[in-house]
């Protein structure tokens, strides 16, 4: 049985257990690493972006016509001898299938893999009705024997070790098995399941496609069990989500081209089976197969009409959004999903399995954008996750305290900044002057938060330092406004000072518009969209982008939030377009606008490792500039494993899920330490907080710096 905690407390217990499972961590870590390589190889030479757009478009065109496609499919398939059903709910689907079994006096049922059957908990119904059900996909069989749900949509038993599987099989077969010998275990499964294939009276499958123009089902498997399930027994029932309907074979073939590559880096699955209607089957007296196709609605038709969430139905269940998710990599699928796993699971659970099952898991997202960057049908997963979070908050009458706080405080810049200043004073006794860390945890934080040293608020915020250093250049080459963001303004103003030092050298006039405030991303992360919209409008007014050539920011998160979300949050205007077009990150500004040259810098050759912030490399697609800037500024850039994997910060995420944040951070720091670099550089002040806090906790000598600080340091004077 799948049990997903309904409360955040229960959820933390589950996470705690998952994090203690050493095997899980290693297995998922190795998988994530191998997956990236094989996926890249599989797509070599293909125009992936074009394919993704085409597939997203094809899916979007089908969604409003699902019923039309259904009718066409039904007409064709029934003309070819199938019986086609439409089930409104999961229960109805299960009842139809149990009815078919009863009508045909079935005792034993074999199944090939179907996420849709997992969604409806079909096995439970069938078993309650007295049928013996055998899963024949090896992974599904394993988890069936263990009475648990899948932990991955493509590899359902990825959470288990060979030893666990070996002893399970020993128990089931009564044969003592070598617990290291996977090949032997597979042979045992072959033998056991072969008997099931030969004796069962009914086969149940899912389908990857339902081709409307011909009434054909398409089923992909690697093991070949799909072919056996659909061939040997006299009755075949396919349970298919309505969103699997595609207008024509071309669309199905397109999905087929991309799905296995994106799922596991395979070019194609070993078997793809296309079934049109009732074919020969000598198990039945009339020599023909009894084929029933049950389409499942279960909220899909309504979802297809939803202007925001319909894109979730594009999903082709490749599982990639879990493969690359750093949270999945630490806690696994049982703790990051209900039936559906990973990023898409956080979304679909709400629609198929309700608020209670979604409440806790939906918060467990760093907004790192990794899932979005690999989704073959371009679903904006992180955005939809926040939208689901909003629905959950609306369903629950009691709001988390932090949401109430964010709504009251962030909207009011003076109140917010006043509180920060008061906090800066209040924290004084806790701060160790020399390194700027807080040496005693404030009482609101628990022991789990000790994984990194906490930064102190700066004694003087940037906005207070600014009036005395404000300058006017007679003939500047460019005029730019600095959008600082909260962290630079209140915690790390030295990063802005480094930027200003550089700009003076390059004859660039910098202004710091005083009324700017938090970019609003924290509100967005808590699904407080109205608050985020108000803040966006305030910042647009404060920044006056029409007065400047560029708006530069040192914070990748602020930049990607402003670029991606502001146009969705506030009405279009000339100012907004200008802000959107002229907003630029530090590295791109130096490389692409100022065209800085190596001879303007000392050649220190210091060995530097780089952390690529999520919101820079995926949010803004900036990958080349920071690395080139490091080399231009005379450093030795030393590549590091998983440079573009999240550092685990995620703003308030690291407060809410400190145990996961710590696990992700520690992995990152291990990799950085492997490089032998003297300094770790990144271009997001939030990442600097997390990484520096972690390094300090380790007592490591590796310094952590914002790229602006390092570049400014190496600038030649004069």
């Amino acid at each position, binding site marked *: 049985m799948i049990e997903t905690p309904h409360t955040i407390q229960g959820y933390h217990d589950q996470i705690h257990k998952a994090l203690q499972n050493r095997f899980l961590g290693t297995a998922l870590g*190795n998988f994530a690493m191998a997956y990236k390589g094989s996926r890249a190889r599989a797509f070599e030479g293909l125009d992936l972006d074009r394919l993704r757009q085409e597939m997203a478009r094809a899916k979007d065109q089908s969604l409003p016509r699902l019923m039309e496609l259904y009718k066409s499919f039904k007409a064709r398939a029934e003309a070819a001898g199938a019986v086609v059903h439409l089930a409104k709910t999961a229960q109805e689907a299960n009842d139809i299938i149990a009815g078919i079994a009863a009508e045909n006096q079935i005792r034993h049922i074999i199944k090939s893999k179907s996420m849709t059957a997992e969604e409806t908990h079909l096995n439970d119904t069938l078993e309650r009705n007295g049928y013996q059900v055998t899963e024949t996909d090896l992974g599904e069989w394993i988890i069936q024997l263990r009475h648990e749900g899948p932990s991955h949509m493509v590899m*359902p038993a990825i959470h288990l070790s060979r030893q666990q599987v070996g002893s399970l099989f020993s128990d089931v077969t009564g044969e003592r098995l070598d617990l290291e010998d996977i090949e032997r275990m597979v042979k045992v499964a072959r033998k056991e399941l072969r008997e099931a294939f*030969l004796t069962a009276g009914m086969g149940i499958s899912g389908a990857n496609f339902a081709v409307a123009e011909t009434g054909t089902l398409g089923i992909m498997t690697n*093991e070949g069990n799909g072919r056996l399930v659909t*061939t040997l027994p006299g009755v075949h029932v396919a349970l298919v989500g309505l969103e699997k309907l595609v207008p024509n074979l071309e669309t199905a073939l397109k999905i087929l081209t991309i799905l296995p590559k994106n799922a596991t880096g395979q070019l194609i699955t070993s078997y793809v089976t296309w079934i049109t209607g009732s074919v020969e089957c000598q198990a039945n007296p009339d020599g023909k197969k009894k084929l029933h196709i049950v389409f499942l609605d279960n909220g899909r038709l309504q979802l297809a009409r939803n202007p925001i969430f319909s894109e979730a139905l594009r999903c082709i269940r490749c599982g990639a959004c879990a493969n690359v998710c750093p949270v999945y990599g630490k806690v696994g699928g049982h703790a990051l999903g209900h039936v559906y796993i990973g990023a898409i699971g956080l979304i679909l659970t709400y629609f198929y399995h309700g608020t209670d099952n979604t409440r806790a898991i939906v918060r467990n997202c760093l907004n790192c954008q990794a899932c979005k960057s690999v989704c073959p049908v371009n679903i904006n997963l992180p955005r939809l996750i926040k939208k689901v979070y909003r629905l959950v908050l609306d369903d629950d009458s009691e709001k988390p305290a932090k949401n109430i706080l964010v709504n009251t405080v962030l909207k009011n810049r003076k109140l917010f900044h006043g509180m920060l200043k008061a906090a800066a004073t209040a924290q004084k006794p806790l701060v160790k002057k020399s390194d700027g860390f807080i040496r005693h945890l404030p009482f609101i934080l628990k022991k789990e938060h000790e994984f990194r040293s906490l930064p102190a608020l700066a004694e003087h915020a940037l906005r207070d330092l600014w009036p005395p250093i404000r300058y006017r250049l007679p003939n500047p080459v460019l005029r730019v406004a600095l959008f600082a963001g909260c962290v630079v303004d209140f915690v790390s103003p030295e990063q802005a000072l480094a930027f200003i030092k550089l700009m003076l050298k390059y004859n660039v006039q910098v202004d710091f518009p005083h009324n700017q405030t938090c970019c609003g991303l924290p509100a967005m992360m808590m699904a407080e969209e109205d608050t985020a919209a108000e803040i966006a409008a305030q910042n647009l007014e404060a920044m006056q982008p029409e007065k400047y050539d560029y708006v530069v920011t040192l914070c990748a998160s602020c930049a990607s939030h402003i670029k991606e979300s502001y146009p969705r949050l506030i009405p279009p205007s000339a100012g907004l377009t200008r802000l959107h077009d002229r907003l630029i990150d530090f590295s791109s500004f130096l490389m692409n606008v100022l065209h800085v040259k190596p001879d303007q810098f000392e050649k220190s050759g210091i060995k530097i490792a780089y952390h690529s912030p999520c919101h820079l490399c995926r949010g803004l697609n900036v990958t080349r500039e920071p690395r080139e800037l490091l080399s231009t500024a005379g450093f030795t850039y030393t590549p590091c494993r998983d440079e573009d994997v999240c550092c685990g910060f995620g703003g308030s995420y690291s407060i809410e899920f400190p145990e996961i944040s710590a696990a992700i951070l520690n992995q990152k720091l291990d990799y950085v330490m492997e490089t032998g670099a003297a300094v770790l550089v990144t271009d997001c002040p939030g990442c600097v907080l997390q990484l520096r806090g972690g390094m300090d906790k380790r007592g490591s000598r590796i310094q952590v710096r914002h790229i602006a600080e390092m570049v400014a340091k190496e600038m030649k004077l004069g």
Partner: protein
Amino acid sequence: MKQADLVQKMTEKAGLVQAVVSRIDSFDHALAYAVNLTREKSLNTLTAPGLNPEDISHLSALCQNVGLEFVSPPLRNHLRGIHTALTHVDWGIAETGSLVIYSDSEDLRIATMLCDIHVACLSASHIYPDSASLSTVLKDRMGAGPGYLSFITGTSRTADIERVLTIGVHGPLKLHILILEDHQP
């Protein structure tokens, strides 16, 4: 793409998924190949659904000569006893090394699913570059009433235990592809 290039790509891609690919220049070679392979592997039975009567009588004679049992349809009566299956292939897809087999006949399905070794004979002139270029042909077939069509790429495989690739979980343990050089344009 020229036929020679298609054959080469087909060979390369099928090889990557553990299929054994050879070239032959007459179908008789396929018969002999299947018989020899069965003997080499110390297996005892062979079946060949979908062959024309002439080839069948030829093949069953070959089997008899070397003491192999030739299994005749209907194969439902022999679900546990099929060692080698020799079949024709309708189309090849070079891009992925896939075989396309029209499998409406139950015997053909049973043979290719339950055998230990599948020997599949593909005409070189029937190799297409990719699935998209075959879509019209397939679509016509699918639109023509009840049908069961298979794409087969390599052997049955799983990676469900610790992601270790293991061959032959449910279907054939080995796939041999014989490309018949039929010298057509």
